[in-house]
């Protein structure tokens, strides 16, 4: 099919086949409109029209302290997850660039294996680990300590979410770090900089695009997390997604649930739009240097 599209300038009917690539994308686009576009539009419309037309659902959302607490908590948890991921991923990604091919393969496998293990099963194992009669608490007790409460706390949610999201931080970081010319570090040291100074003035700034890229992905994905907070969290660690679900499935408040969903959606896209130019210019800057 693709060969019909002329690839040589001498082909006579080039203009006649210009629509062909668009036709190839059409089935996917139609499905996209039907299963993503139309449903999202429905939610936006419902948030504005139920029970009657107007912005009452948004006024309700931003007027109720409970909702604002949950909104704030969603941001705080996502920020914590991002920080934990960055702190763990940075040394890990660095080591990936510094070791030989065999160790690197093992490190890459450790990152990719969780990707392939079912998400629900992974959350299940965190339930088993963190619950009051779980692995961590029984180990603590057998060592003579008091048990600590991990499940149904924000700490538990952050631990579980960070583990799921860590690969999304490691992979972009690694791809940026891989491209950093280590001779720059040697140059800095030959000019008299101590290793730590060389790291902070040369290596760290060069690796920041990777940190930004990873942080944005992790933060955005964390904002919309549903399963992990639902299973590991309690009433005091409810996130926005759970609230949306409660409004729609339990209370049948499509307008209110829709408004919350729209807030979540708009936040996500605003963050993406804000991040895109920053990331692009950072990348370019890194390339230029």
């Amino acid at each position, binding site marked *: 099919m693709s*060969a019909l599209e002329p690839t040589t300038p001498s082909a006579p009917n080039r203009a006649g086949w210009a629509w*062909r*690539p668009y036709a190839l994308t059409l089935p996917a686009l139609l499905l996209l409109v039907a299963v993503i576009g139309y449903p999202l539009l429905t939610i936006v419309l419902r948030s504005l029209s139920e029970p009657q037309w107007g912005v009452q659902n948004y006024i309700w959302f931003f007027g109720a302290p409970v909702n604002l607490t949950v909104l704030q908590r969603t941001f705080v948890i996502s920020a914590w997850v991002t920080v934990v991921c960055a702190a763990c991923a940075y040394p890990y990604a660095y080591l990936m660039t510094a070791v030989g091919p065999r160790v690197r393969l093992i490190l890459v496998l450790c990152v990719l294996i969780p990707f392939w293990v*079912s998400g629900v099963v992974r959350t299940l194992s965190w339930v088993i680990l963190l*619950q009051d009669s779980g692995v961590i608490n029984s180990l603590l007790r057998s060592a003579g300590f008091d048990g600590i409460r991990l499940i149904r706390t924000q700490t538990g949610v952050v631990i579980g979410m960070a583990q799921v999201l860590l690969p999304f931080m490691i992979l972009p970081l690694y791809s940026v770090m891989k491209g950093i010319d280590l001779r720059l*570090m040697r140059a800095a040291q030959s000019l008299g900089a101590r*290793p730590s100074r*060389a790291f902070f003035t040369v290596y760290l700034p060069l690796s920041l695009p990777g940190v930004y890229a990873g942080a944005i992905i992790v933060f955005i994905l964390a904002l919309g997390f549903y399963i992990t907070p639902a299973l590991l969290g309690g009433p005091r660690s409810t996130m926005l997604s759970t609230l*949306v679900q409660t409004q729609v499935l339990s209370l049948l408040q499509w307008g209110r649930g829709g408004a919350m969903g729209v807030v979540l959606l708009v936040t996500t896209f605003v963050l993406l739009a804000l991040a895109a130019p920053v990331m692009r210019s950072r990348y370019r800057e890194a390339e230029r240097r």
Partner: protein
Amino acid sequence: MEMKPLTRVILGLVCLLVAIWLVAPTLVVVPMSFNGNKSLAFPPQGFSWQWYQNFLTNPDWSSSFLNSLKVASIVAVLATVLGTLAAFGLDRMKARPANLLRMLMLTPMVVPGVVLAIGIYAVYLDARLVGTLVGFVLAHTILALPFVLIAVSASLEVFDRRLETAAASLGAGALTTFRTVTMPLILPGMLSGLLFAFATSFDEIVVSLFITNPYLKTLPVQIFSSITRDADPTVAAVGTILLCATTILIGGGMLLLGREPKGRQ
């Protein structure tokens, strides 16, 4: 980068801990699946195969497993076909519309799951698609599409288009060219897209939780409701089975990939 030995040791230790944190937690389902008691408390008491038996004989579990297999297989094929077509189209377009359309097609990856789920649920309620095979397949296909698109686009990027011209100049028709020249060369991309699509569908939970009903449940939905309902170690048995299956699949895939370059030469 020159490092002091101490820095080296600390770095190594930190990374070891991170690696353990990434891989080890999941393994906890293995001992739990042989629990003698009906409990998920640690440490497990006694030994039994009863939860594996329960998985095989209890219709709730076996039917949801078969449903997931069915849905994921259809989704894998459908998403691979649609995704490959789209990747081809994008590859042959001018850069500007191609980038725009590509961004559009990747949106399913960033739309928060619950927002998408309530949207699809609302539409499915009207269209009577809740709890139907068609409903599951459509929703999962659109979620799997970005992965196919990325995988196939990556292999199209390194594909030398002059090969198609050469085939055409030798008199091959469009379909023959695609079948004998293009497809074999982008096959690795299509296969990894197929695998990703299968895994995405097999693992999808958020949208599935909304569009499910008692007549059609997928495995993740059954696992989720089992975890929230009671401490049934059958979930641990299922987790162990999935873990083994994934390990075999990835191990096999790695072996195949490792052998491929040699076979080609």
